[in-house]
């Protein structure tokens, strides 16, 4: 039996609202990508009938629109939580304004991406590179909401979508808005692939229980990492 004993401490990293946000967001993105792709390239599953027998494509679009509203408000909530949540969910984690964050990004690239250096990364929440990537995804969320509701505005009289009507003329028409919306969908898909892989990778290598932390909220962090964090905080 191979075993080892490392002094560790459990840290409550992800509060319940953050975890709920994460899973609602994940579900919305999966549903939105699948329905969105189908809207762009519909399957020939019904044929040889009259239109009044079917409504499947309308239903696909309906699911897409409902998920989009959930996604949007969930996104707004997360922005709010960036100002109300604990130290790991605050906005300043995501925007690299400090030199320290840039240094850590370089370290993460060396240690985890290229695997050329062996050096502990001391972040307890997201590491600096991950945070920055999430910031980029937030920008994509924003663009996707703008373009999506912009296209939706022309067929809605509701207040919220009408707020986005300006984006269509701004981008020079529906066709460009739709093209951008479609390209950004691939951003979501590629992000998801890499994101899921990297969660597995970190759990596999660091063994801090990063996967389950998004379920239970707690991470196992080495005592010395916590000490170093406390020191740098002082």
């Amino acid at each position, binding site marked *: 039996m191979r075993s080892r004993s490392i002094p560790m401490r459990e840290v409550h990293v992800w509060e319940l609202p953050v975890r709920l946000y994460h899973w609602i967001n994940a579900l919305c993105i999966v549903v939105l990508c699948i329905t969105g792709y189908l809207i762009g390239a519909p399957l020939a599953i019904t044929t040889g009938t009259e239109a009044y027998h079917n409504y499947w494509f309308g239903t696909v679009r309906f699911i897409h629109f409902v998920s989009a509203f959930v996604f949007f408000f969930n996104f707004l909530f997360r922005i709010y939580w960036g100002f109300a949540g604990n130290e790991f969910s605050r906005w300043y984690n995501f925007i690299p304004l400090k030199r320290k964050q840039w240094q850590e990004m370089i370290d993460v690239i060396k240690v985890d991406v290229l695997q050329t250096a062996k050096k502990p990364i001391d972040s307890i929440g997201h590491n600096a590179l991950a945070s920055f990537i999430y910031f980029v995804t937030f920008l994509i969320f924003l663009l996707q909401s703008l373009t999506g509701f912009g296209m939706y505005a022309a067929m809605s009289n509701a207040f919220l979508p009408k707020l986005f009507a300006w984006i269509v003329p701004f981008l020079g028409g*529906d066709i460009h808005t739709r093209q951008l919306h479609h390209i950004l969908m691939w951003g979501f898909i590629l992000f998801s692939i890499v994101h899921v892989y990297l969660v597995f990778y970190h759990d596999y290598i660091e063994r801090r229980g990063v996967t389950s932390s998004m379920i239970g909220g707690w991470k196992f962090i080495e005592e010395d990492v916590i000490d170093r964090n406390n020191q740098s905080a002082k």
Partner: protein
Amino acid sequence: MENKQPSFYEEAKGNGISRKDFLKFCTTMAAMLGLEASGVGQIVKALETKPRLPVIWFHFQECTCCSESFIRASHPIVASIVLDKISLDYQETLMAASGVQAEDAYKAVMAKYPGEYIVMVEGSIPTENEAYCCIGGRSARQILEEAAANAKAVVAWGNCASSGCVQAARPNPTGAKPVHKIISGKPIINVQGCPPIADVMAGVVVHLLTFDRIPQLDGLGRPKAFYSRRVHDTCYRRANFDAGLFVESFDDEGAKRGYCLFKMGCKGPVTYNSCGIIKWNDGISYPIQSGHPCIGCAEEGFWDNGPFYQHLPGVKGFGIETTADKIGVGLGVATAAGIAGHAILTNVRKHREIINAPEPASETQTTKE
């Protein structure tokens, strides 16, 4: 030109149009402009009392299809009243005058009705070298700038004048620009389409005449009455779209049954126009009704957003046939390959770590990563 201008109605009577036909025309126009019932009376009064609009109609880089569309307006009164009368002043294709006489005609309008006349433009304006389009020894840009300076409003007919159309398609050798990129500080009405629907053109003219102001415009300068709905949202085949019934090829069963042309590259979902409601050629049909996907001729840059028979436009820089989906799948495969390589490297590293870990004998060893 006489000082006392006859009204539209007086002209119409002179041309043998009955009172009944005149009222029918007014009612049709009110309906198209989306006015309430009282709007009919306003139109009748305007056409009865107001002198005709002084109009200068320029042809720059274009194919004259807007004029062609206009003179084929479904209602005979449109052609015989609106067109004949407004074209009297200056309309290069239709006027009898030529040369010095023609030049004098439009100069006379500018001198006589400053701030009152309407400039109507068909065609784009070259900017790369202004010599690409000259009339009477002066460039399109010079003529337009001079005429627009004292105009009440500028009407940009068609896609050329509204967004450049085919001349502005890549690589745009003449540096063709639409009216709104040349003229500023004047109300500009973009009447989109290649060509615009004749009844829409007539509607814009009637609106200008009746209300003495430009119609309500959307964010792209188009009259809301005609361009606030997508062709897709007013399409009679829409039920097939919602049902997921699509034409897969032009000869298939779906095409015969009149299914949705979305997968044949129909640009109806991204095109704002009234084709589905007003239709063409006296309300007989429109492209989709004739079995052909909409090519989006009322949208900016529709030539560059091709291919016509592909739903999503090609991605520039990757060849005309490459769509965002092909690039996306390519990147997905590349990402998967990168992940596979990374995973192998990670496992090698992890394996070494386990091998180097202390053997069972030792109890409380601390391994550092």
